[in-house]
């Protein structure tokens, strides 16, 4: 598509980031802030020694949601329902941890499993809808998010509300059932997400299921011809994707907020940043993890930028989407092969 022969072109991702930085720079300038200063603050605020723990803490849920998005994307499917799956997991985890008696670590483990199961099943509902009723998952995952968010919001506002606080939130998770702290602000959730990342990489690279998913992503017809049951595969993949999203929700609840607070899981928009990170590399897990870390650094740095200059940190979301759009337009990222 370009006039340049391909060997003369710099890597697309680099060009995209430079392009986004230029457009973003103009936006920062419009806010009356020196772009170089703004970008400097982002760098210092994310990658300096003192801010690395914050970046890792932000990366834990973001990389988790990146994996939740990357898994279906690897097979050419898109899960837009991460928000709904995350709140279902978060609430299931919170309720289990609050109301299940027993030794703390065991309760926490059961809570995480309950979160993964509940959210996984909810996500699998979308696959069932496409297999049985022809409702495209791209649409149904997103539409299913709204009832999940609405119902969990209702539950924590009314029947499950902690009446002692007056805020829409559940009671506190008992200290024994909270996730173990490594060193503040990091907790064992980081290790859990890292383990899931390894697992996803392993499945993708070394197992038959991973191979079949990649074949589907490259050419679904060929996968079916080769004996892959596309409908069952979709259900399994969506379950796994939703389960990861649910785990992320439970990790935030059990690891940092200690209760399910209405809206608190969704405000940072991990789902959408994760989806963008996954789209950046078309669902390839290693690249997706890297992209998720990159976006986490960008957003953590955004806090510093907002604090030190007056440029709003939502700029980082703009930068992320420009990178995606640039790549999608330039070389057909996400183009489903025919």
């Amino acid at each position, binding site marked *: 598509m370009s006039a340049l022969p391909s060997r003369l072109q710099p890597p697309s991702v680099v060009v995209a980031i430079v392009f986004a930085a230029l457009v973003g720079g103009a936006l920062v300038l419009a806010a009356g802030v020196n772009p170089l200063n703004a970008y400097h603050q982002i760098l210092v605020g994310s990658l300096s020694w003192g801010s690395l723990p914050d970046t890792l803490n932000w990366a834990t849920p973001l990389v988790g949601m990146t994996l939740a998005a990357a898994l279906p994307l690897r097979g050419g499917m898109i899960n837009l329902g991460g928000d709904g799956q995350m709140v279902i997991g978060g609430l299931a985890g919170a309720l289990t941890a609050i109301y299940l008696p027993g030794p703390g670590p065991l309760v926490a483990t059961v809570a995480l499993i309950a979160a993964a199961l509940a959210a996984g099943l909810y996500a699998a509902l979308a696959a069932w809808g496409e297999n049985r009723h022809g409702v495209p998952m791209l649409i149904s995952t997103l539409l299913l998010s709204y009832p999940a968010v*609405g119902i969990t919001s209702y539950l924590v506002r009314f029947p499950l509300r902690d009446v002692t606080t007056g805020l829409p939130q559940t009671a506190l998770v008992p200290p024994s059932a909270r996730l173990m702290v490594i060193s503040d602000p990091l907790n064992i959730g980081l290790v859990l997400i890292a383990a899931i990342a390894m697992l996803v990489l392993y499945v993708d690279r070394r197992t038959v299921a991973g191979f079949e998913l990649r074949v589907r992503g490259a050419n679904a017809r060929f996968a079916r011809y080769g004996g892959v049951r596309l409908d069952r595969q979709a259900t399994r993949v969506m379950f796994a994707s939703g389960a990861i999203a649910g785990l992320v929700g439970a990790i935030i609840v059990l690891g940092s907020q200690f209760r399910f607070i209405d809206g608190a899981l969704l405000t940072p928009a991990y789902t959408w940043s994760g989806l963008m990170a996954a789209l950046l590399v078309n669902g390839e897990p290693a690249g997706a993890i890297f992209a998720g870390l990159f976006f986490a650094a960008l957003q953590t740095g955004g806090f510093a930028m907002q604090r030190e200059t007056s440029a*709003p940190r*939502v700029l980082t*979301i703009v930068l*992320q989407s420009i990178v995606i759009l640039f790549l999608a*337009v330039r070389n057909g990222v996400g183009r489903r092969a025919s």
Partner: protein
Amino acid sequence: MSGLITPFLMQSAVQAITPILLAALAGVICGRAGVFNLALEGLMLVGAFAAIVGSDFSHSAGVGIAAAVLASVVFSMILAYGATIFRGDAVVIGIGMNLLASGLTAYLLRVMFGVSGTFSDPAIVGLDKIPIPALQRVPILGWGFGRQTILTWAAWALVVLVSVVLFKTPLGLRLRGVGEQPYAAETLGVNVRNYRVGAVLVSGALAGLAGAQLSLGAVTVFAEDMSAGRGWIAVVAVMLGRDNPLYAAAACVLFGFADAMSIRLQSEGLPNQLTDISPYVVTLIALVISHRKSGRASSAAAALATTADEPQLDTR
């Protein structure tokens, strides 16, 4: 039944239908030209923001509408050129545009007006509601249309206009040809790329109107992410309507009523967290039923099916 269908319910239903209908018409035009427009949500949001900016600076609702149309058309160029000349994936571009719209409007809201969340200002002039006393006395339909903005009337006029243009004019024939048989259309001398670009830009204008109705119609306020899934519901309306403006309008009426019903249920004392989800639940149910009824997938559904392998026209 008479207790359920009140003048207020009808009015809020017609009001709720307007932005979805305008966005759905935008989707229909794109769908007919063979470009899957998933960016309706973002286009609407950009339009809603631009309408507030235009009206705030000029104290004129007309300027607000013009600004909304202009901004959404400019924004739609990303899809118009990205999905044709550059042959990017329309789904990815659509998702990217929605996120960009959400981030960009939030950013500009903070930079231009120094607020986050919602913005309202006495200087903003909303759209006038046109009272038609004679119509207001007519039960049901009259209740609904007796006092609405010019954009509501425009939306319904556009349903007719788009239907006529699509099915009764050479322009419409060529547009449908471009969508259904791009190779044949190209062979017959129709410039596929230009038709597709034009269709997306027109859809941008319509989505801009939808955004203006959102921020200047019932209220005069901009709230972050105020399109709140309406663009996605419009996408579903296009799917249910199988790219036909009349059927898509029928689907919009269904969603509009679900929306208005939820407001009514709220006034009956149900918590709004529960009533707010009714349009989405109705949408999902409609999708399931429609498939069962026909067994044939719409073009949008086919484009979305994870097993699709659509032929790609080389539009270089």
